[in-house]
């Protein structure tokens, strides 16, 4: 099987019933408006999430915008994590690469794409509600500026990279790792 992250609603229903790993996106219009909901133009390709026992993890993939206007992803949610954030990775004052919340969300250019990758932008799971084991499917919901949402499923993969430190590691947030500078450690 090749994990698909951009199939249609009907395909999702069939695939999800046949296997545990039907990966697909669905869209829901949050508002009734004459314009098509922004989420209709959004897809994610090659989505995956890093397997982890507890604490933090991250999801990756390539967001694609099929419309002729820019799209802005303003939020992300998943049952797999109590909190989620849109993260970017930047160099801090001491020259280290750190990740932090991306101001203003992710802008996907009209007709273009936006890469979510280890060491770059990503969907941050701040505190896992349960272990994410390799091969498990994790559902995510992205929210766009107009309030419409896009759902997709990402398979979990064992991955030992993506260990960026979290700039807010000393913030009052339970990261589950207990280290002074919290990182996306898989705990292995």
């Amino acid at each position: 099987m090749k994990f698909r992250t951009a199939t249609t609603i009907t395909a999702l229903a069939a695939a999800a019933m046949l296997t545990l790993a039907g990966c697909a996106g669905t869209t829901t219009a949050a508002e009734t408006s004459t314009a098509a909901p922004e989420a209709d133009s959004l897809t994610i390709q090659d989505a995956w999430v890093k397997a982890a026992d507890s604490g933090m993890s991250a999801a990756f993939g390539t967001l694609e915008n099929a419309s002729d206007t820019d799209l802005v992803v303003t939020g992300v949610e998943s049952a797999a994590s109590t909190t989620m954030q849109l993260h970017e990775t930047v160099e801090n004052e001491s020259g280290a690469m750190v990740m932090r919340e991306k101001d203003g969300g992710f802008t996907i250019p009209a007709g273009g794409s936006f890469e979510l990758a280890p060491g770059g932008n990503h969907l941050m799971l701040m505190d896992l509600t349960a272990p994410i084991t390799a091969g498990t499917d994790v559902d995510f919901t992205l929210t766009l500026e107009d309030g419409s949402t896009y759902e997709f499923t990402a398979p979990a993969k064992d991955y030992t990279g993506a260990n960026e430190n979290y700039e807010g590691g000393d913030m009052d947030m339970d990261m589950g790792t207990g280290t002074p500078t919290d990182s996306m450690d898989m705990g292995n």
Partner: protein
Amino acid sequence: MTSDQNTPASATGAGRAGRGLSRRHLLFGGAAAGLGAAAAAGAGVGILTVQQSTAAVTPPVEVVPNGAETVPFYGAHQAGIAVIPQSHATHIAVDLAAGTDRASLVRMMQILTDDAARLSQGQHALADSEPELATVPARLTVTFGFGHEFVTRAAGVVPSWLRPLPAFGVDRLEDAWTGGDFLMIVAADDPLTVAHATRMLLKDTRSFGTVRWTQAGFRRAPGSEKPGTTMRNLFGQVDGTVNPHTQDTDFDQLVWSQGDPAWMAGGTSFVLRRIHMNLDKWDLLDRSGREQSVGRDLANGAPLTGINETDEPDFTAVTPIGFPVIPEFSHIRRARSDNPAERIHRRGYNYDDTPNPGSVSNSGLLFGSYQADVDKQFVPIQKRLDDLDLLNEWITPIGSAVFAIPPGCAETGFIGESLLA
């Protein structure tokens, strides 16, 4: 071919060569160098330019690198069984971890199927940390197999033949090369491609088990010979002549399971025997002795009663003094059954590992064979060879493993779904 390909064109009077020769000749024919043209590989990827001292205008010729070739992943049968053997194959056996249950096996096979499907088409796997290494598929195939323990944990019906082979007198099996719960055969025409795919697949099995053994084998490099040329083993023998071919009418019946048990329909079985070949002892044997031991000519693999490789051996022919021309103790006489159902599809690879101290070779054959039913097809042959085969003087099985190869899958499915879904 006499002249050196590296000789500068100016020194060999290459000016003549351009005339009357097609580009194809210059690129692929040995004739080019023989006539004094120096063909030099261009710096650009996939471009070969023909340099001539006269600076004649010869446009660069686009060469399609064979690294771009792909083998379809999805289908009724798994890839890597019927396709013309690739140059390199790494066989990997995994022992399942204690906690790997049926649900884990589903997750593992979905992940590995996705990896294999992508990599075989020259796309990187999800979470591939070296995506650039995935861009040269070179006919990559990944073939998955299930051992007895795998099927048991999946709570499936275990095929009657899925168990260790009966003990044979010739066996000197080492634990290090024997058994295994789960098999992956990663094969491609490029060893770097095989290495990357192997690493990617093994990274994705870490949560489910540990590597028991890996066995890497090789054949001639792609382009060294016409595709489909029967391979040679390290004894120098043409090895693989009498083998059911995909176009044969009985191939399907010999190789693909008809559904016993049901989840195996379209699958097959794989036996891997690691057979040490004693090259030092083989050196002591003269040419006619070597040919007698197998019953075939070394030059072209023809039976001792024939002229061409594919000639049918005549086991009734006798020498002027009344002995069979193909000895009764020869490998091909012993390996051939009177029962046409007792045949197997061989797909072997040579191995040539680091010699042990005090020795100069550690070589042999990764004897791999596919058959619908191990007990009905493979075992009778191996039994006969165990009883009598002159070749046994020089070969010793040191590893043995049996796997069920589940059928292929469609793009929406995964390998093993008939057992696990």
